[in-house]
């Protein structure tokens, strides 16, 4: 395989891993717990900015870019900081919007929040360098490892894959646990769940914060790879690419949404990036977005549960009792 091909493939692989991390976080919020977070990409962005400013070093007055709180933290710390900051911000947003608001108002507020976040990041020039964004963010351990660029790509792919597996195991741990069952109950009928004594607001907040932290981590891994981040990278339609991945793959099915990620953000948007320019600059991109919209509509119409629908939970009694529908329900209680 030629070097250029390897470079391209490893980049796609890294994008896939990063998108999977992000989609798993959103699937936990939306698919499992039923929280509509239209500002998800903003939490990814917060993670990315956090990782960037804590690894760029202190800001100088004669620097070409200006930002808040520059630091020079060593390798794993920026990612942890990204998760913590996004999680903390999720807590703040959640406390304001998830407690008392009706679900449709929540969805509205989230969408508006995403638009506003872009606006603030572009206009407050001292915050994260305004519309130009941050650049020359160091890749983690690049100097210490001393690898050739191509080898470093594969190492980074391995690192992103490792984080993806960790995220997957963590999210699956939640969805398969009694907690996951409670969350699904809340998603399907929050009043019934509340009537059974589940603290709906607390559960929602918890999932919102966990999902936000995962979003932050995916943003951090992304920005440390591409080394640049600007308001143009996280406009609100990006959240709908994640939603499209979830809807296509299968809402609430962790394996399904990973397949969805392979199909939509990676297969559809990244792999077609090198299509020749037809008609004029920007035409292909516009058509891509039209296709994302059509894809969402088609899936909601023909397969509202995605390619791999969420499997109905089956409860098997511990003792080898005869399994009939009535028995299995009784045994699960």
């Amino acid at each position, binding site marked *: 395989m030629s070097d250029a091909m390897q470079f391209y493939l490893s980049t796609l692989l890294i994008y896939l891993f990063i998108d999977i991390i992000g989609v798993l976080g959103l699937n936990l919020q939306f698919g499992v717990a039923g929280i509509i977070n239209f500002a998800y990409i903003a939490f990814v962005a917060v993670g990315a900015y956090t990782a960037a400013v804590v690894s760029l070093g202190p800001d100088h007055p004669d620097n070409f870019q200006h930002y808040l709180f520059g630091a020079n933290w060593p390798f794993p710390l920026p990612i942890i900081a990204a998760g913590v900051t996004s999680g903390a911000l999720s807590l703040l947003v959640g406390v304001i919007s998830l407690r008392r*608001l009706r*679900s*449709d108002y929540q969805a509205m507020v989230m969408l508006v929040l995403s*638009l506003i976040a872009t606006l603030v990041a572009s206009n407050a020039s001292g915050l994260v360098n305004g519309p130009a964004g941050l650049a020359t963010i160091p890749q983690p351990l690049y100097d210490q490892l001393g690898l050739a660029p191509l080898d470093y790509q594969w190492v980074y792919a391995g690192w992103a894959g490792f984080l993806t597996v960790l995220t997957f195991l963590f999210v699956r741990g939640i969805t398969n646990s009694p907690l996951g069952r409670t969350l699904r109950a809340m998603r399907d009928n929050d009043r019934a769940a509340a009537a059974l004594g589940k603290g709906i607001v607390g559960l929602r907040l918890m999932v919102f914060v966990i999902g936000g932290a995962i979003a932050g981590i995916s943003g951090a891994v992304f920005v440390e790879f591409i080394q640049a981040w600007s308001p143009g990278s996280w406009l609100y339609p990006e959240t709908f690419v994640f939603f499209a991945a979830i809807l296509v793959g299968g809402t609430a099915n962790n394996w399904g949404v990973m397949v969805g990620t392979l199909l939509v953000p990676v297969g559809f948007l990244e792999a077609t990036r090198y299509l020749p320019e037809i008609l004029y600059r920007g035409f292909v991109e516009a058509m891509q*977005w039209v296709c994302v*919209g*059509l894809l969402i509509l088609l899936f909601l*119409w023909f397969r*509202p549960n995605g390619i791999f629908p969420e499997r109905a939970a089956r409860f098997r009694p511990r003792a080898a009792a005869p399994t009939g529908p009535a028995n299995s329900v009784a045994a699960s209680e």
Partner: protein
Amino acid sequence: MNQLIPAIGFGLITASILAIAAVGFTLQFSVTNILNLAYGDIMTACAFSAYVANQAGVNIWICLVIAALFGAVFSMLLNRFVYFQFVRRGTKLFGMIIVTIAMSLIIQNVLLAIFRPTFFSYRASPGPSHNFGSMIFTESQLAIMGIAVVAMLGVHLLSTRTKLGKAMRATATNPSLARSCGVATDRVIDVAWLLSGALCGIAGVVIVLNTATFSEVTGANFLVPIIAAAVLGGIGQPYGAMLGAITIGLASEVAASVINPSYKDVVAFGILIVVLLVRPQGILSEVAVAKEVTA
């Protein structure tokens, strides 16, 4: 103080545009329970329809009527052949929001593909300026305010004085009861979307008349204050939307003159959050509470 009065003047214009747009947006929700997030993009589509007519040499005020007609028919067809089909198939509130956003992406990018990424403006002069104290309005801005007042009066008279308005309010409050009382709800829903679409079309053109240039994202960018105004008044409440529009319009323009023009929308959002914390159901909210059960 010498900055404040002109800012209030700008605020009145923004409030007028916002009132037209927000009343249309909230009407769609009240009658069909759909939060149409493609609303801003339909506004842009209407602005482009007026642009095409204007390029063909049609007077801008006739273009406004064309855009209103285009918006009315487009919105009605969109609801009948896309949104309503999904609702009938059992797509829930969340699913419907995603459907409208998918439509928004499609409309915006089809417009981008047809008209290409650049800025457009109408062949129309804003007319001479008139001074009112220290507020300065161009003639077209005065016309915008006039159109808003007429539109709001029209919506008010329609919903209180006519049988159609009564049927619309009945459908909004309880569709199945309205149907069993002999209201042809399907027809009422079509009319409601025609009406809100016309408001959408007017809003799309007057926003361009005020700002002079537009592109494929103009309407979408205006969605934040529209949502803020509609939610502020209690979503689904036309009078609430008017009240919300005046609040958001004045506050954001005054804040723009005091702080920084780029933070207009941030101010709108801030007001929205504060109001929702105090009154999570919006300022006027009887219908909104009734909706929650069916949502």
